[in-house]
């Protein structure tokens, strides 16, 4: 039983007091920012990324992972009680969750959301433990041409599954790749796009870019929006435990949501948000009482909530096994690895089994802690919602500033982040998704390196990408995705998947 042995190694690492503390801290920070609208996991992880430099790499990763799945728990609380999605992944939970709350069943809705999330967390942790090792072995057999093609496929798929214009998203990837080139070229020693600024010769740190685009950019975007009125459900939450009927209707939905979320999470561009939207659509279509949806159907809470948690966690699989990030959060996790000088890729599992399995074990522990801690703490989280945004953004702004300063203890990084903040706001206004840009930024140097290696193998013949069967297959898949998304029928379906009222 290799799996059991591996899990034993993992729990050995995850159960040390320090790592338990960081899992709990991450989960609590995640819940906090999940509850608060106006700040998401990407911005938070970017802000805390420089701080993980002072931690053990394993502890740092455990905390950052905790923020990501903790945010999925927290987001549902705000969705149900305030009808405001704390996170984009809980947008659909608002629909039926808030209706349940208005019918006086807020407790049941919160409990169903937490239990469904926990169930999904358990299943997806097992999935990671089962499927990560074989995938990593496949990854280890890849050469430079295969890796290059895999990254092309990953980037294209990330764009196709995300919402918005595909061409704009591909352009954003190229922009990210270009920003990733800033600095010194490791192969030739020449500097690129540094504008003669000394601080740029070392390249731009992923934390600086992400804090600017997501942290500062979001603040500006939020401040330009009219203030939302927050319709807080004020009546006391009396009955927390769902009824027997709730249970009977919720568990099949949680099962379906977990399955769907697990699959969509692994795909590039997938992850929590897409999983939640897809799960809601599935529940609504397959339900025997579709008329109840929008009026407090418990399946409409259990399905998406299990799906977003499952999707959040299985999106770690390609990052951990192949070193390919499927979404912006995973791109930042790769940034965290490289801060510590760890090369992301399939060798992590064999070279650092303690870190690999420790992180997986901590995910399950973190989920357990979340479900135990969060239900009693809901009262406190709700109180936090009364903090108005005019205080919140000042705190976020300050933590962004300190976070980016500590990246390299340089004022230049802060100025750069301010510039990226304005850029991030412009992108939001022009409906250019910034997430693909971060993926391109992180993969850029790796792609160039593998392109160069592949060209050296083939003596400069680009046909090598088509002559190697695995590489050819990956490129055909990328092309097929591009063609598919251009078909009108698929295009309208894709737009539909992200619209749910």
């Amino acid at each position, binding site marked *: 039983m290799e799996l059991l042995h591996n899990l034993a190694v993992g729990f050995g690492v995850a159960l040390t007091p320090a790592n338990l503390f960081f899992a709990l801290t991450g989960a609590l920070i995640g819940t906090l920012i999940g509850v608060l609208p106006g700040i998401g996991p990407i911005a938070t992880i970017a802000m805390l990324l420089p701080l993980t430099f002072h931690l053990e790499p394993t502890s740092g990763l455990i905390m950052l992972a905790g923020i990501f799945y903790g945010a999925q728990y927290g987001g549902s609380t705000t969705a149900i009680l305030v009808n405001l999605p704390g996170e984009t992944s809980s947008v659909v939970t608002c629909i039926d969750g808030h209706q349940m709350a208005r019918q006086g069943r807020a407790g049941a809705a919160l409990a169903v959301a937490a239990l469904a999330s926990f169930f999904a967390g358990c299943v997806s942790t097992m999935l990671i433990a089962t499927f990560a090792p074989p995938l990593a072995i496949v990854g280890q057999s890849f050469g430079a041409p295969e890796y290059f093609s895999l990254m092309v496929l990953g980037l294209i798929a990330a764009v196709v599954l995300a919402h918005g214009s595909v*061409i*704009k998203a591909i*352009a954003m990837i190229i922009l990210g790749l*270009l920003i990733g080139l800033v600095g010194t070229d490791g192969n030739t020693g020449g500097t690129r796009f540094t504008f003669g600024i000394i601080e740029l010769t070392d390249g731009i740190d992923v934390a600086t870019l992400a804090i600017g685009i997501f942290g500062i950019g979001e603040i500006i975007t939020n401040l330009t929006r009219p203030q939302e009125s927050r319709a807080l459900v004020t009546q006391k939450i009396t009955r927390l435990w769902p009824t027997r009927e709730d249970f009977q209707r919720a568990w099949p939905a949680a099962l379906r949501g977990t399955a769907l979320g697990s699959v969509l999470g692994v795909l590039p561009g997938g992850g929590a948000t897409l999983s939640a939207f897809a799960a809601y659509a599935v529940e609504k279509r397959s339900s025997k009482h579709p008329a109840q949806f929008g009026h407090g159907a418990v399946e409409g809470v259990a399905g998406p909530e299990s799906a977003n948690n499952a999707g959040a966690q299985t999106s770690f699989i390609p990052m951990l096994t192949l070193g390919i990030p499927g979404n912006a959060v995973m791109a930042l996790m790769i940034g965290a690895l490289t801060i510590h000088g760890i090369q992301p890729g399939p060798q992590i599992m064999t070279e650092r089994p303690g870190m690999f399995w420790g992180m997986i074990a901590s995910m399950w522990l973190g989920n357990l802690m979340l479900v135990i801690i969060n239900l009693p703490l809901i009262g406190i989280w709700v109180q936090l919602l009364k903090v108005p945004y005019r205080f919140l953004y*000042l705190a976020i702004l300050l933590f962004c*500033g*300190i976070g980016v300063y500590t990246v390299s203890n340089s004022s230049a990084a*802060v100025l750069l982040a301010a510039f990226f903040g304005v850029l991030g*706001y412009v992108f939001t206004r022009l409906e250019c998704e910034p997430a693909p840009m971060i993926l391109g930024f992180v993969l850029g140097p790796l792609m160039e390196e593998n392109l160069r290696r592949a060209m050296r193998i083939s003596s*400069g013949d680009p046909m090598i990408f088509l002559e190697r069967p695995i590489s050819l297959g990956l490129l055909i898949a990328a092309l097929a995705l591009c063609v598919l998304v251009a078909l009108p029928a698929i295009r309208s379906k894709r737009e539909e998947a992200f619209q749910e009222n």
Partner: protein
Amino acid sequence: MSIGGQSQVPHTYWHLLARRDVLAGLLFVGVALLGLWLSRDYPIGTALRMGTGYVPRLLCWILLGLGAVVLVQGLRAAQTERPLSSADMSAWRPVIFVTASLVIFGLSIEHLGLVLSILLLIGVGSVAARELRPIETGVAALVLIALSWGIFILGLGLTIPVWPEW
């Protein structure tokens, strides 16, 4: 274009330009051209021995093509799509003050220390919000100073100067 009677012409130009995709396309094309210009002297090399400029120039050409497509699509759709209204453009206040507060923070932290630079960041940053409440903001600043001192200096032991260094 003369000012005055011919206000019709700049008006329609503006309406054609003020579309998301048109502006996005122009942005991409602009960045691509800037990149091509900046990398004009980078050695390109060959596919076998790629120089510093090989990948940057390749990417810039792709971006130029994509930007052009976005631009053309935007112009074609411009007849039907709603232009960006003046409300979309009224964001100057957060843009200026959020950016300024961060720039001031970055420039001052090494010389003035954490406490004073936080005060500056909060002071300038609070102007970005619609309503300004000096007393509340002052309290918030004190809380945030205490919080950051506790977390970053006491807790994490970061080497950031706390007070001005003369």
